[in-house]
């Protein structure tokens, strides 16, 4: 595939792997990839095969679906069962279990929850169904927030009065702060998220190096991006530096996307606190619609149950999301909790650490299988 194959070359990967092994030396390096997109890419491409044992990757909280608390899913489902409501959302959210099942389960009980590919499509649904109340359950970090913001602005400009947004937008900075503040945290550096940084810019992470002395390299999602970013992190470690650098310059501007940030700022404001699955309440970590756009705020149109749902007793998503446990170290991984029947959100999204590991990584015994080369046809 053009523009992609260049970033998947095994020859260059071998070169980077040798560089990583050398830079890693004898020490142990615990690196957190914050973003679920990286987790997915790491397993999907088999990147761990290129890393020495003393370079350890741990998975962070950067999968927006994984950090949605179950109570928030229940809130959305409660809205969906209000008379005349069509709830719309991204496919990512359809299978996430709430306290009383997922959106797919709700549909089987008679709710009308539809998958859309963009919030603007949700607005189309509202235009086509003037006698229904159309709600968009928004999800995502600052990556998808600008699209939600643009949709609210469009709805306001067109005077559409049957459309509203249930905002579950979260902010990546406060989540990293919470990880850094967690007791017993022993991370040596971070792979910085790629997509979200196209909006907020690499400069948004400067506090990580400045206040906490940890290096962070914003990385792209192709395998060579990830390997190069790891090499850059290790080089900083070797040289005793802790800086924020940008490996993903082909997409990420240092200062971010001003127009996108303006759209977010015009329509949304930080919430004083928001519950994250696994991390608990984090101050100023999520976005709600501003008062000026109250007309498009589902939280003001509907009464939400707002119940906190305790995680399943055996679920250790919290430990996995904060990098304290590897997916396979969770007691219910792959037995009670599987992609078919997830009890924790890390198992739901393909970007969740547990699902990524379950789908792609369970290959401890299988590496030799490829020793016998397949003759070219």
């Amino acid at each position, binding site marked *: 595939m053009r523009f992609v194959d260049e970033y998947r070359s095994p020859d260059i990967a071998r070169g980077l792997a040798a560089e990583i092994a050398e830079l890693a030396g004898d020490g142990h390096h615990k690196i957190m990839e914050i973003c679920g997109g990286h987790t997915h890419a790491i397993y999907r491409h088999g990147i761990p095969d290129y890393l020495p044992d003393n370079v350890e990757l741990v998975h962070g909280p950067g999968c927006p679906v994984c950090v949605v608390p179950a109570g928030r899913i229940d809130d959305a489902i409660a809205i969906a069962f209000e008379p005349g409501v069509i709830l719309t959302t991204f496919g990512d959210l359809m299978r996430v279990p709430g306290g009383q099942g997922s959106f797919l389960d709700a549909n089987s009980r008679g709710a009308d929850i539809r998958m859309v590919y963009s919030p603007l499509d949700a607005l189309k649904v509202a235009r086509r169904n003037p006698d229904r109340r159309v709600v968009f359950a928004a999800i995502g970090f600052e990556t998808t927030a600008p699209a939600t913001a643009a949709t609210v602005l469009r709805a306001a400009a067109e005077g559409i009065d049957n459309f509203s947004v249930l905002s579950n937008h979260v902010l990546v900075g406060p989540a990293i702060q919470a990880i850094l503040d967690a007791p017993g945290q022993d991370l040596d550096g971070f792979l910085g998220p790629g997509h979200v940084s196209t909006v907020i810019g690499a400069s948004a992470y400067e506090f990580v190096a400045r206040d906490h002395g940890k290096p962070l390299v914003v990385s792209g999602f192709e395998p060579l991006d990830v390997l190069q970013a790891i090499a850059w992190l290790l080089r900083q470690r070797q040289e005793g530096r802790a800086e924020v650098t940008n490996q993903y310059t082909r997409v990420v501007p240092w200062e971010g996307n001003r127009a996108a940030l303006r759209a977010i700022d015009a329509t949304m404001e930080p919430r004083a606190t928001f519950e994250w699955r696994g991390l608990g309440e984090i101050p100023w970590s999520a976005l709600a619609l501003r008062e000026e756009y109250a007309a498009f705020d589902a939280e003001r149109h509907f009464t939400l149950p707002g119940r906190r749902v305790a995680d399943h007793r055996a679920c250790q998503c919290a430990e996995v999301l904060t990098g304290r446990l590897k997916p396979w170290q969770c007691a219910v991984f792959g037995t009670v909790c599987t992609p078919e029947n997830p009890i924790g959100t890390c198992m739901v999204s393909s*970007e969740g650490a547990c699902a990524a590991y379950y789908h792609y990584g369970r290959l401890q015994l*299988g*590496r030799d299988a490829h020793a016998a080369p397949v003759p070219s046809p």
Partner: protein
Amino acid sequence: MTQQPEGAETDAKTEASGETEAEALARVARHRERRPRVRDEHVTLAHGAGGSATADLVEDLFLRSLANPALEAREDQALIDVDPGRLAFTTDSFVVSPLEFPGGSIGDLAINGTVNDLAVSGARPAYLSAGFILEEGFAIARLRRIVDDLAAAAAAAGVQVVTGDTKVVGRGKGDGCYINTAGIGVLERPVELGARFARPGDAVLVSGPIGDHGITILLARGDLELEADLESDTAPLHRLVDGLLEACSGVRCLRDATRGGVATVLNEVAEAAGVGIALEETALPIRAEVNGACEVLGLDPLYVACEGRMVIVVDAAEADTALAALRALPEGEQAARIGSVVAESPGMVSLRTQLGGTRVVDTMAGDPLPRIC
């Protein structure tokens, strides 16, 4: 008749026609014998009620397109002659949105799906049934196109649709048109194929590019605002199977890779035979358009449905012969060897990535949902 209409003009008109009563009745009889035409523009509940509207629909749409002696006998069942031996028997139901898409329609799928389920057993597909469930209000012109597609696909696959059924459900109770087909195939070769026969060392082949159908359907729904020059791969596989079995004696199993794609089929094989399957990402035949759409949507082409592709497990010694036999036919032109059966990791499918790493290719949980956030 209890009452004459005003003016009692009936007699006057009869007289004006200049016919005797017998002549008039003969004319009516001739009219009734004429092949009926459906004049309605939309399917109504009457078309499923079993009366004359149903008969008209059957005559005009189904019998006209699917003409064959067994069907035209118009009995409640088809009587067919078969030689003693083994038969293959299968059924499949077809629901697809949209009903028509680049490269085919539900009519093509309904034939090819059942033909392929028969063909991969090594049988020659011979006779099919077709059951239609139509929604009130469905356009007759559209139904006619679908039936024509179905008839053309049956002709191309060399099968006869010998029995059928039509039901109509009320508006809003169906999705336009559902089709069920069942089929009978005749095993003319003494072959026994099955996933359980795969053994370490065997070669794994695929008969053509994967994922075309699934991505075509996704794009044809139109809500992605993505466009690609792609067509569904819906096609009958019976000729490929025939050529393959003619050329090779070491074919272990054939599976058409429909729902769940190639990955799902291979996981079934790995499980049934208690073997591992090791794939090479760089050997997978995938069109650039399919790869690109999958990349954008966060889908894996290995899980995307095909409707005219099969996975072949064959004795490695015959891998090249098998590839040559497949590539000799246009529908197998891009056949490729994609991996091997191995003893390691029984029950699992693994993939050496383009990068050179390894990963599991797992069975899928539910429908693949596009990733956005």
